[in-house]
């Protein structure tokens, strides 16, 4: 069973990075670190996709010397998907950073748990 295992460094690095990013996003308490973790997770997926589009010994998918033979170029689809994905992740990052600034203005902390605690305290004081 292990004989036919396919071991490739890019894909494995991408999966390791995905795990690191996912854990950071889920469990790190600092908001900025969470956002960095989200970016790491996203880029890991893009690295995986880009690695899947690569074909050994072929060229960049841009027409050169009028050759239109598919056997000359790598797969352009993953590149297109990743381009879209990068823009999506930069938008999400900007939004989360803006939220972080507003939360810091209000609660003077970057720690999500401290923010939650001071929010609860504030509400109890109001009642």
């Amino acid at each position: 069973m292990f004989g036919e295992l396919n071991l490739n460094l890019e894909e494995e690095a991408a999966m390791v990075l995905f795990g690191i990013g996912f854990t950071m996003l889920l469990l790190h308490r600092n908001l900025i670190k969470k956002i960095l973790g989200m970016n790491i997770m996203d880029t890991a997926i893009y690295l995986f996709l880009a690695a899947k589009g690569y074909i050994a010994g072929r060229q960049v998918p841009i027409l050169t010397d009028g050759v239109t033979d598919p056997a000359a170029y790598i797969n352009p689809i993953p590149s297109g998907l990743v381009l879209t994905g990068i823009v999506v992740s930069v938008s999400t990052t900007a939004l989360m950073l803006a939220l972080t600034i507003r939360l810091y203005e209000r609660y003077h902390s970057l720690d999500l748990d401290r923010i939650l605690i001071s929010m609860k305290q504030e509400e109890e004081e109001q009642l």
Partner: protein
Amino acid sequence: MEVFELLLLLSLVVCAVSVAVIRDLLASIIVFMSYSLIMCIIWILLQSPDLAITEAAVGAGVTSVLFFVTLKKIHAIRKEDRDE
């Protein structure tokens, strides 16, 4: 070439782990910037210059600038608190 790729991928993982464990936020953002640049080089090696150019402009450029301005803003708010 293989060795070079291996080195790049290893440094990618090292960068990601250090982003997670470094306590200083500014330092971790700078490490993240270098992470994006390494990713750029890997994408060039994977024959995807479109991605490399976008990641260099968006990932290493604009995203990092946004992180820096956020950090600076937070410092400013803190300073204001102190002055009051």
